[in-house]
């Protein structure tokens, strides 16, 4: 079992296998995302309360979901890189940061787009959006730390420690923000009325979530491949690859 684990950590092996899987991820992502958005934005039934504006949740919820998962993946991979000194794990963590930050930003923007027709303002300090904002700050902190340290290995280890500290703090931050929100807002709107959503509404949502995961995987893999080529410039197989082109 350990040999499989260590083989997983070989950049060369990953590069080879990801090259074969990448087109599939991209295809799946495209198909699912297009299906999901068309279904959700055009065909799903209207929400009786909010009319058509709620449709933005088909983008907002998946991006928010992914923004949080991405941070978790980044922290876990950082920890693996720290403990087992697996370079590939460091590369995954490094590639997660900008992707996760972009998803968080998208979630905030779509949250604002949803907020305007519903509440009349572009921004509102509700618990979810505020937590998203703090998550964006956490991402930006990790990205800033990585770009400030010139030595690659030190940067990977330092941002691993930071993302782990952030991971421990995320439940505390979410709890405190929700608690703060209930003090200041009598009624809390929820973006998704979860239990009472009919299947025609949550099916496209599910498709969008899965599609966005595939897209995320594709993006991640593309970034990691570039990272591998940069780091393994010394090795024979990279030199051979470059010669081939």
């Amino acid at each position, binding site marked *: 079992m350990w040999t499989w684990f260590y083989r997983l950590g070989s950049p060369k092996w990953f590069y080879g296998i990801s090259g074969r899987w990448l087109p599939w991820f991209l295809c799946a992502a495209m198909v699912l995302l297009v299906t999901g958005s068309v279904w959700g934005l055009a065909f799903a039934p209207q929400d009786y309360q909010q009319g058509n504006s709620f449709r933005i949740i088909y983008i907002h919820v998946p991006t928010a979901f992914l923004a949080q998962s991405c941070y978790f993946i980044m922290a876990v991979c950082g920890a693996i890189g720290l403990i087992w000194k697996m370079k590939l794990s460091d590369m995954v963590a490094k590639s997660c940061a900008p992707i996760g930050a972009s998803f968080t930003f998208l979630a905030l923007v779509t949250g604002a787009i949803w907020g305007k027709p519903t509440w009349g303002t572009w921004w509102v300090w509700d618990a979810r959006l505020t937590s998203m904002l703090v998550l964006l700050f956490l991402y930006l*902190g990790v990205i800033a*730390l990585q770009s400030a340290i010139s030595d690659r290995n*030190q940067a990977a*280890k330092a941002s691993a*420690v930071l993302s782990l*500290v952030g991971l421990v*703090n995320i439940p505390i*931050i979410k709890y*405190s*923000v929700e608690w703060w929100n209930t003090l200041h807002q009598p009624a809390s709107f929820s973006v998704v009325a979860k239990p009472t959503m009919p299947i025609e509404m949550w099916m496209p949502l599910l498709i969008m979530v899965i599609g966005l995961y595939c897209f995320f995987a594709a993006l991640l893999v593309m970034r990691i491949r570039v990272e591998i080529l940069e780091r393994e410039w010394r090795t024979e197989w990279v030199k051979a690859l470059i010669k081939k082109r």
Partner: protein
Amino acid sequence: MSFSKLFMATLKRDMTIAFRHPSDLVNPLIFFLVVVSLFPLAISPDARYLAEIAPGVLWVASLLATLLSLDMLFQSDYQDGTLEQLLLSPQPLYTSVLAKVVSHWLLSGLPLALISPLLALMLFLPSSAMPTLMITLLLGTPIMSFIGAIGAALTIGLRKTGLLLSLIVLPLYIPILIFAASAVQNAAIGLPVLGHLALLGALLVLSVVLAPLAIAAALRISLGS
């Protein structure tokens, strides 16, 4: 070497050094005072407005003052090479780190908490809220020292550490800010505050136990290249 001998040796050393440059100790306090004074100038000197925003303003100002003071934790030890000697010591790094953060708090957070009633007067905070203000600061500033020390350890020797450190550490301070400021607000209008203080206490215990681990790891990473 017992825990207390090691702890006290580093604590005593840091305090001795600090008291030989007493002017450095006053800077965060002056900053605190200046920032608090900006709000009446910017918003309104009216007692009603100020009293309402006083808890938040006092806490944001102490947050920023603590951020500025984090520089003194590791920077000078890094530059004169004594920090790497700590890493080369056969004694546990956890204990030495704990001593450094405690001395940092004694030199920055504790004075902040002690002069806060004076600044609260300037913002017309009701006197019923003063004890709560001091208690939240006494509980919250050590948490900020511990979490801030993680950020300081990660950014030793980098350029523009001030900005980078703020970006890293401020999001982690948000829970402290929320619980502490609302505790003081509650105290000002006569509502119970014990729950808030208990939450702050829990955060303090958590940071005292866990933060030195992260700080020690961060120190080894920053000095390891």
